[in-house]
């Protein structure tokens, strides 16, 4: 038997500029990977990539759509960065988004027919609270029963999905809706104001931007942010410093749940305007990629959300012009994560080849 001896060594100091440049490299590699896939499928790769990444944002409507998609992605990813920075693996933002949507949507239906400036803020607030409550389930189970938050938060996604299914088919379905699985259209006061006539971009983007700013403040300027940073680097040190580990787990889950809930309520009061089965094209899962692509940094996440939002749009254009399934978008999202993790590994570790050697066993 012959064995190639490979040794992996940790690199000691990684310069910050390269640390923030590797996501760009990952995106570049994704484009190359995408080109190869399109070529194998028999398309002209340059043309295909153009359809995927240029055509969708070549007009004002496209740019507005980009922001419509980036708004929830950025918001959820910002929330998740709190969890991920402190070593809490909340994988269930999709569920928290849906549950926030359910609660916010329920309140919106409650206010059906009411008009007034107070309606929308109440709906938004209840959506955030819904997301929070749903995120607290894995947090409390983790702190008091030592369960694994990855499993619990992920499984709760399906609970939320099925609950939404039940509500839109059963009790909340539109009485005049010919049994379509959807609720009534929310009244005008329950809708996010549209920013420009004819475009779908809505006021939710301001919520996202405010959250980004607030998160930056919390993460870099407050004691809570400092505790999150220390816990993420060394749990032993956090314990030694006397940080309240349990409280912190709950706080980061609450923040990230609230963000996901806001994203959910932003979708249903914004572009959708009612509850139906598919209020989110997996924004909650895709936001995990956004969070890491943005290096868990609020500004980085803004850029990352735009890039990833583009894959959603690109997939739709590609479906129309190239007749490829829209799931190509997910292929691109997967490739981004793959190349990011790959380049990160090479960034943090050196691989040494020690040469071939005969292995006599």
């Amino acid at each position, binding site marked *: *038997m012959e064995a190639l001896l490979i040794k992996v060594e940790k690199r000691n100091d990684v310069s910050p500029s390269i640390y923030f440049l590797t996501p760009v490299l990952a995106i570049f590699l994704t484009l190359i990977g995408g080109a190869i896939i399109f070529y194998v499928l028999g398309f002209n790769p340059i043309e295909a990539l153009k359809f995927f990444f240029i055509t969708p944002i070549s007009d004002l409507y496209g740019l507005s759509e980009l922001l419509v998609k980036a708004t929830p992605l950025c918001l959820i990813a910002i929330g998740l960065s709190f969890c991920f920075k402190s070593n809490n693996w909340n994988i269930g933002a999709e569920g928290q988004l849906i549950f926030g949507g359910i609660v916010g949507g329920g309140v919106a239906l409650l206010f059906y027919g009411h008009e007034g400036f107070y309606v929308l803020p109440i709906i938004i607030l209840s959506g955030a609270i819904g997301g929070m409550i749903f995120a607290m389930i894995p947090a409390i189970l983790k702190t008091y029963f030592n369960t694994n938050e990855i499993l619990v938060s992920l499984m709760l996604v399906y609970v939320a999905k099925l609950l939404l299914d039940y509500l839109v088919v059963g009790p909340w379905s539109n009485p005049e809706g010919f049994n379509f699985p959807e609720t009534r259209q929310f009244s005008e006061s329950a809708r996010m104001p549209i920013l420009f006539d004819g475009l779908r971009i809505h006021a939710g983007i301001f919520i996202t931007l405010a959250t980004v700013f607030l998160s930056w403040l919390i993460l870099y300027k*407050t*004691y809570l942010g400092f505790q999150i940073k*220390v816990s993420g680097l060394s749990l032993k*040190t956090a314990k*030694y*410093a006397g940080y309240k580990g349990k409280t912190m787990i709950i706080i980061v889950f609450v923040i990230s749940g609230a963000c996901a809930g806001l994203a959910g309520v932003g979708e249903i009061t914004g572009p959708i305007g009612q509850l139906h089965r598919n209020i989110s094209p997996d924004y909650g899962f895709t936001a995990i990629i956004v969070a890491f692509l943005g290096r868990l940094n609020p500004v980085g996440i803004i850029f990352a959300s735009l890039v990833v939002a583009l894959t959603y749009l690109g997939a739709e254009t590609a479906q129309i012009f190239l007749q490829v399934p829209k799931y190509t978008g997910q292929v691109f999202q997967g490739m981004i994560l793959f190349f990011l993790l790959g380049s990160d590994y090479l960034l943090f570790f050196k691989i040494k080849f*020690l040469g071939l*050697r005969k292995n006599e*066993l």
Partner: protein
Amino acid sequence: MNTKLIISKISKIYPGCIANDKVSLEFGSGKIYALLGENGAGKSTLVKILSGVVKPDEGEVFLNNENIKLNSPLDAKKNNIGMVFQHFNLFETLSVFENLSIDSSKKNEELRLLVNDILKKYNFKIDLDIPVLNLSAGQKQKVEIIRCLIRNPKVLIMDEPTSVLTEQETEDLFVSLKKFSKEGILIIYITHKLKEVLSLCDEVAVMRKGKVVSVSNTKEERIESLANKMVGENLSSVKKKINNFKNSEEILKISNLNFTSDDPYETNLINLNFSLKKGECLGIAGISGNGQSELFQILSGEIITENTSIMFRQKEISKLNPRERREYLMAFSPEDRISQAAVPELKIYENVALNNFKSSNFFEKGLVNEKKIKEHSKKILSNFSVNTDNVELKSQFLSGGNLQKLIIGRELITSPELLVCFNPTWGLDVGAINYIHETLININEQGKSSIVISTDNDELLRLSDRICVIYKGKLSKIMDANTVTPEKLGVLMGGGSID
């Protein structure tokens, strides 16, 4: 089968520490050799060199007069050197047999016959087809041993094999090891447990600070003599002044401290009671792994135990976490300065902010007061002569000595009434050690108290007013440091008793 293993002038130097300093040893088959030494004495490095994990900077290894090059674990296997590590290298979810077959080139049927022979010969009772996770620690170790035996080893190295075994399993292991030895396998037994050396081994080599300090026949040794060789008996000339604390008030009283751990690698603490006066230094000696780390964590509040009473300045603090205890003017310096007391990736001033309490004003209304923290950090850097004035420097660029000065400085600059430290000078150079010792003596003179948990007896005799020994989670009686001799400490550290 006659095997002769000679280690000749092996040296291994790590940055800032000489792990092995011209180590020469000779071993012959038919005997069980003990390699005895404290944590950090260099025995692990030596064993890693023998098993090919670490390459020595200098020196040679001869097996049966042949100079062998051990560049990788494969070379060790090729030369029939087998190794059982303290932490098992087994796949928990695979079956015993699958674990054995992974690194064997034999056919499965052949291997099964061989393994069954070994099981029968040594009377091991292990089901080969159940997953490893269902085995006890002792059985897992047997799997590791079988894995070595499959290769007909000439040399078998056991690294701290009894740390996770029960008494019965330990006895079984000794029976097996004696059998192997009779069959001509050369056995090197690494441990810091003195009783095991005397009951199992024929010869013992003691290592201290990277050097072999003695090689002798175990029949000529007693527990005390070995303990002294292990931790060093040369008292340093500087002895601290006698403090006038005898009539001062009691500052700390611990009663009924019990701790039972779920983790087999941890030590349970059994009924610890002690107290401390203002200005006094209590030294806690012991061979590492006898409960020191658990005791430190209970004193610091990282572990909260039931029913224990910790009275500090007339307040019950046993249920408080470390940050809350700091409010009562306690300070803590843990053993692990790199991954616990400080975070290497954080900047100096951020590490300083770890010791935060209300009056420090590092965080006002929840916001970071960076200016305040940096000013405070600069003060620590200059007062405790840390070799930099750049508070933005990442801590990973500080040497061990400077990092420890920073940590001790961070803990002391707030004038705490009690400092608890665990191996405060472990792995430091002489200059840094002296500096830290002077600092610790200084705080006693200022009427502040300290508890020093240390595996270095020189250090304890230099710093302490009273000394006790921790052994298997129990504390010995507390003695006046002036009446303590290294011999007495040796007896207590080996589990013996004195009047």
